[in-house]
């Protein structure tokens, strides 16, 4: 059994090594798989902040993933075709700069998270699940009807955005960019979880009444966590758009929200990088089980049931000692 620190290190180094193997073997597909794992891992870890540590089961987190993605894609799209967006006070010409588009994605996702969270967090349990789902579905149907940006067919950006003078079209370069984001996000989440705030958040999950009797406002604590989580999920969405050079309403759908929850449950909630391991298992099952059978999702369901029944701490619980 490992300490959580060692486990985190092994997982992160494992993904990096997998990508390097792909590079050495001239298999860009491996690098793309590793990149996808990293991006979904970031989104899963962000969801885990509110689900695993805050006890809020958001079934609408795809909304922030999709909003981040659409914002980054729209900015890149306008930069590419030269058509500006009239924003009353100024015309926005879009941007092909990754950093700027990430910034926009994070800001918009934060705003959406603040809006949705301020209403949703007034509820709890099944009502919270349903209200977050409802908000996500609203954005999903909006994107389906938004024909200016591809509607149901989605929006292509054709080339990846730029980051300094790095050739982002090279799979390994883009992987390293995403991997760096994962390390930064991991550091931030680790800090938040181990801060006073993180411990009060855990207290809210376990005993909200006690937190009130300590003079703390659970609503404010939970909303802050929700906004942080939404912002990081938005960043993951922007990275995913750069990976695929495409965004579609699917990224806002309830299936995507469900997949993010699956990552958390598979890997183990209440562990910093549990969802990252969840992403590894999920992507590998999708790839390798998908080659064996078309019905790989059926077997994923079976595995999920077994994990919930016999390994409530997820796959990471098999490796980390308490």
């Amino acid at each position, binding site marked *: 059994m490992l300490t959580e620190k060692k486990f985190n290190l092994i997982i992160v180094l494992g993904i990096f090594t997998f990508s390097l193997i792909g590079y050495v073997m001239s298999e860009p597909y491996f690098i793309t798989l590793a990149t996808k794992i990293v991006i979904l891992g970031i989104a899963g870890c962000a969801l885990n902040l509110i689900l695993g540590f805050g006890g809020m089961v958001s079934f609408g987190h795809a909304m922030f993933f999709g909003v981040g993605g659409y914002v980054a894609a729209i900015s890149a799209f306008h930069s590419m075709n030269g058509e500006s967006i009239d924003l009353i006070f100024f015309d926005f010409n879009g941007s092909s700069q990754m950093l700027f588009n990430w910034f926009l994605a994070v800001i918009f996702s934060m705003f959406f998270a603040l809006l949705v969270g301020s209403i949703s967090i007034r509820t709890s349990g099944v009502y919270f699940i349903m209200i977050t789902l409802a908000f996500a579905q609203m954005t999903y149907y909006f994107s389906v009807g938004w024909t200016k940006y591809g509607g149901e067919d989605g929006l292509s950006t054709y080339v990846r955005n730029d980051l300094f003078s790095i050739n982002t079209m090279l799979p390994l370069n883009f992987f390293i960019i995403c991997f760096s984001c994962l390390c930064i996000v991991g550091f931030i989440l680790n800090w*938040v979880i*181990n*801060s*006073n*705030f*993180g*411990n*009060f958040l*855990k*207290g809210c999950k*376990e*005993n909200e*009444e*006690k937190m*009130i*009797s*300590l*003079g*703390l*406002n659970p609503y*404010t*604590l939970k909303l*802050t966590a929700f906004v942080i989580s939404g912002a990081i999920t938005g960043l993951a969405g922007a990275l995913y758009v750069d990976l695929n050079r495409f965004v579609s309403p699917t990224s806002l759908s309830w299936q995507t929200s469900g997949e993010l929850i699956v990552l958390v449950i598979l890997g183990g909630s209440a562990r910093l990088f549990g969802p990252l391991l969840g992403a590894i298992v999920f992507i590998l099952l999708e790839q390798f089980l998908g080659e064996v059978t078309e019905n790989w999702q059926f077997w994923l369901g079976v595995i999920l049931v077994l994990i919930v029944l016999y390994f409530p701490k997820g796959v990471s619980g098999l490796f980390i000692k308490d």
Partner: protein
Amino acid sequence: MSEKKEILKLSGINKCFGNVVVAKDISLTVVSNELHALIGPNGAGKTTLIKMISGELKPDQGVVMLLDRKVNHLSEIARVNRGCIRSFQVSSIIGSMTVFENILLAVKQKRSILKMLFRKFQSNSSESSFVYQTLNQLSLETLGTKVASTLSHGDKKKLELAMALAMGPKILLLDEPFAGLDQAESSRLIELLKSIKKNMPIFLIEHDMQAVFALADKISVLNEGEIIESGSVEKIRRSKLVQNAYLGGDL
């Protein structure tokens, strides 16, 4: 002798749930360094009253004064921050954390969100010594590293009390702290509360009459939402009204 100061004052408190009257014109006062006990049969409205004092429920009529200030409009959280600290009938602690961490939560509660985010959950030397001092006060010093959920029932009650004390209360509202304790644990808690009440007022709801008589400076008896008698331990012991309404016999 120093003058007794009114810490908590209830005047004309009324509360109904539909047609059921749970508080009828309740008035009482808790003064500094006094333990005021509220007794009454199950369903008399004791916990409802403590909820109205703490702010969890709002009275339909009447005034709640805390340290000479009307607090009816204040939320539960605002009242906690004014020093009105409550314990629950069922021990309310964070079971997954250690005893030390539970008390540290209580010590660190007066922080803004930003300060909470940018500070690690660890104690500095003054906080550590304060936590250990509180643990010592409640004879929990050997249990600091134990996970709270593994404590005995009595120790959980003590931990909850320790958390309340760590917040520096102006008044303690204790809801049946003796429930479920064995004789030895009860005796220890009585001694502990005797030492605490020297420094701060306590409003105690309790069924354990032995504990109430050992601790109370003043007792109020609640029956069907109404205070039927109030006074010293001797007065309550002798009151025929109380014997008939509450105990059906001699106290």
